[in-house]
């Protein structure tokens, strides 16, 4: 998989909510086909802002975002989705007043009409629980079910790259384990997964590559094992998660 061309290339990205006060200061990352890239770092490192900026939700000051070689930096968010870049926000990531089915149908509206039913069926295969909840308002789902629906919604468009912002936040370890297994399945289907996580232990367990961001800049990059095996790095940036490296979640 290492020789595969990068699906997502982020080059020297500078982005922030206010003019003159960038939160992300020249970050560069790459995500390849069929790999899980995990973004780690202390609070305020700019991880969430980075993925939101890539998704077009935070203004980009400079830098480039390329998807399979195409420059998508200036594209509106909805057009990025059509291009194959999907994003799951950390919170408020499902439409609570819509049913489970309507959440999926909404995302499927970007597809040609002939593909919609089959894509929803494909997603139901990956998340069979959602099929039994199809008429339920998404606001009535448990935290774990909502997270599954949010990921399912993002997968409807068969993205090339799937970005998730702290999907394990607020979930029980069992649900996190289940969710991360699903992410591995998604990775194995050829999707490039970019994962922002505070749950370092679980994230390192599924990561193929790790970027550590500090104060809005790239600090470290490497395989999870190599980073976690350095006690100083692990203690400083990875929450002392040495023992978790290489383990399954």
């Amino acid at each position, binding site marked *: 998989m290492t020789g595969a061309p990068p699906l997502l290339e982020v080059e020297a990205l500078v982005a922030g909510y206010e003019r003159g006060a960038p939160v992300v200061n020249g970050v560069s990352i790459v995500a390849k086909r069929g790999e899980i890239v995990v973004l780690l770092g202390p609070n305020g490192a700019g991880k969430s802002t980075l993925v939101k900026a890539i998704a077009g939700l935070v203004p980009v000051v400079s830098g480039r975002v390329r998807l399979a070689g195409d420059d998508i930096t200036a594209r509106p968010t909805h057009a990025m*989705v059509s291009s194959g870049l999907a994003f799951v926000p950390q919170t408020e990531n499902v439409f609570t007043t819509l049913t489970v089915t309507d959440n999926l149908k*909404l*995302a499927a509206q970007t597809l040609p009409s002939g593909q919609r039913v089959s894509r929803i069926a494909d997603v139901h295969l990956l998340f069979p629980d959602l099929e039994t909840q199809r008429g339920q308002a998404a606001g009535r789902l448990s935290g774990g079910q909502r997270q599954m629906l949010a990921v399912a919604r993002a997968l409807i468009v068969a993205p090339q790259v799937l970005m998730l912002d702290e999907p394990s936040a607020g979930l029980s370890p069992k649900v996190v384990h289940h969710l991360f297994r699903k992410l591995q399945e998604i990775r194995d289907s050829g999707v490039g997964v970019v994962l922002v996580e505070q749950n370092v232990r679980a994230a390192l367990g599924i990561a193929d590559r790790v970027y550590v961001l500090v104060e809005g800049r790239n600090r470290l990059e490497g395989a999870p094992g190599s980073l976690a095996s350095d006690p100083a790095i692990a203690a400083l940036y990875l929450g002392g998660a040495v023992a978790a490296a290489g383990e399954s979640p």
Partner: protein
Amino acid sequence: MTLQFLADGLIAGSTIALGAVGVTLTYSILRFANFAHGEFISWGCYLTLLIAGPIGAWIAASADAIGPLSVGWNIVLAGVLAMALTGLLAIALDAILFKPLRERGASITAVMASFGASMALRALLEVLFSSRPAYLSRELQIAIPVAPGIRVTPDQIALVAITALLVAGLHLLLTRTALGRSLRAVGENPALARVAGVDVARVIRLTWFLGGALACASGVMLGLVVQIRPTMGSEILLPLFAAAILGGIGSVPGALIGGLIVGLAEATTVELVGSQWRAAVAFLVLISVLLIRPTGLLGRSP
């Protein structure tokens, strides 16, 4: 005492309901109380009047009354064209005024700006058409007895039927179509809607268009039962907001029920207390709902 006031209330309520549907749609999707909505009603009615004349002159037969109604096909056709034009007027107002404020996050400023837009649009109508009353039709209609003590004109029956059709159509659009799903998604969470692949800017334009078109329809209905004046829309604005809030902001069926209740309450007050209290009814309804049940009859808690 006759029961005529009940029919009068339902007829007035239908007009209020149609306007309130536009208010509730704009508010629920854009999170914005547009006080210029009343002017869309006035502009819609005047545009209908403006277009109907040439159509009537061009096709003389179109000006003949349709069956028992007091208006001809020229008014119907002009009304449809005016709905589109009023929708475009609403989109233009958003592009020029509200969109820049929305992008700066100045939501309260946008509400204040809508007051300014309201005054400007009303003044422009007075400049263009003068404040002398105008009429969609000067035909005299004979009211038909429909129940003991209740008589209504064919125009009034048509008004209630068209309101019911438009509200039902909008409700189906919102609940049964892909477009409606997008509208509801943007109303709940615009950022997530973008992430889900919805072209939010297009949905916002569509919301303005629908709101403007419905306001125009409301204006034409109003123009059938009252004199057409530049102030006709602003005078009905408070009952519209009272109806939208009573029904529950964001609920189309709620706006219909709210409109009918406000219309009936006004007519009952005129009948039992006195016409001088009519204007106070909408205030009373508004304050009562906000104190007792802020989410309205069919609204959801945020």
